[in-house]
């Protein structure tokens, strides 16, 4: 029986000195993997950890854009894999937070440019320098997903509370399990508590029952997310809204802290009128 991530236990044999590769995937597209990778990566760095976020969506890179680092890309992961640069040259330092780097994907190639074995080798190199390696997986279950999954010590499956996302997540969880991954956790993204209350939206309990997978985070729908990606300034940089808080909680749980899971509640009308307490 694995110790629960929510009780603040360190993962398996990993100590604070060993690197951890965390793959963020979903199956379904557009559910919030890239936003989660960016925000949790930054939040971990804010906690003082050495973090690299890796964009494995080759051909359709977006992690750079969401983080506001797109203008700094010179080399990417394919350049390194094909021997045109050193790994250090492809890493972009995020100057907003100490010890946070981005390894961008290539924009002009496709998922066949890298294979799972090469991803494992890249991560083995990154393990020498970093405590956390977050891999932003592309949507789907084809080679891009296989590349992202191969080096994973821990898998985060991001879902939205709607039928297609949950169905795809079930498939992805099955695929991850068949590849020997045992640390698989759900992040429920874009929860709207008022709609859950009106029984228009699947609840956390519903999802837990259907997928039988431990939940590591619940992120409410938050208008601030769109503005954040418009500006290339992820919400955890300075935000106090519900999504930022949720992302920081996920980062804290990943670094071994005991943070109880809270189910977001619908606000009363007076709270909506006068603004939420921060």
């Amino acid at each position, binding site marked *: 029986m694995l110790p629960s991530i929510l009780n603040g236990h360190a993962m398996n044999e990993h100590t604070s000195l060993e690197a951890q590769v965390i793959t963020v995937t979903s199956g379904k597209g557009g559910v919030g993997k890239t936003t989660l990778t960016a925000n949790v990566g930054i939040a971990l760095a804010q906690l003082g950890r050495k973090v690299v976020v890796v964009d494995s969506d080759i051909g359709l890179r977006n992690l750079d854009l969401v983080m506001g680092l797109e203008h700094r890309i010179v080399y990417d992961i394919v350049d390194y894999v094909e021997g045109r640069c050193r790994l250090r040259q492809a890493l972009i330092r995020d100057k907003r937070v100490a010890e946070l780097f981005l390894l961008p994907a290539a924009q002009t190639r496709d998922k066949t440019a890298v294979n799972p074995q090469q991803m494992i080798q890249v991560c083995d190199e990154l393990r020498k320098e970093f405590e956390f390696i977050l891999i932003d997986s592309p949507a789907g279950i084809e080679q891009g997903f296989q590349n992202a999954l191969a080096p994973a010590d821990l898998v985060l499956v991001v879902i939205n509370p*709607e*039928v297609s996302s*949950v*169905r795809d997540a*079930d*498939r992805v969880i*099955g695929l991850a399990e068949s590849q020997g991954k045992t640390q698989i956790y759900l992040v429920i993204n874009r929860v709207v508590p008022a709609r*859950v209350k*009106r*029984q*228009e*939206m*699947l*609840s956390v309990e*519903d999802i837990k*029952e*259907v997928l*039988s997978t431990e939940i590591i985070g619940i992120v409410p729908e938050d208008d601030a997310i769109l503005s954040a990606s418009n500006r290339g300034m992820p919400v955890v940089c300075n935000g106090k809204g519900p999504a930022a808080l949720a992302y920081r909680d996920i980062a804290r749980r990943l670094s071994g802290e005991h943070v109880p899971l809270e189910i977001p509640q619908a606000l009363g009308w007076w709270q909506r009128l006068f603004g939420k307490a921060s």
Partner: protein
Amino acid sequence: MKALNRFFAKSNSAQVAKQRLQTLLAYDRLEIPPGVLALIKDDIVAAISRRVSVDCEHVNVNLLHEQNSSKLVVDIPLIANRGARAVRSAGRSNAR
């Protein structure tokens, strides 16, 4: 009709979603298309009909999903030779 109205009402749609997902994921995990259940029913009726008379119109074959396992639950009414309904025979077979 009431059930149909509830299906289309905006409220409670989450409950419908949950039920649909539970049923569907049972099939996905077994890697069989849901439509195959009707074919399984035909196969079972054909096999049993070779030995005994079956009330084909009232045969039910359902997939029962529990946490870590699934079961086929089969309900096959039989017809006695003298026209009256024989004792209902419920057959169970495990499908994992």
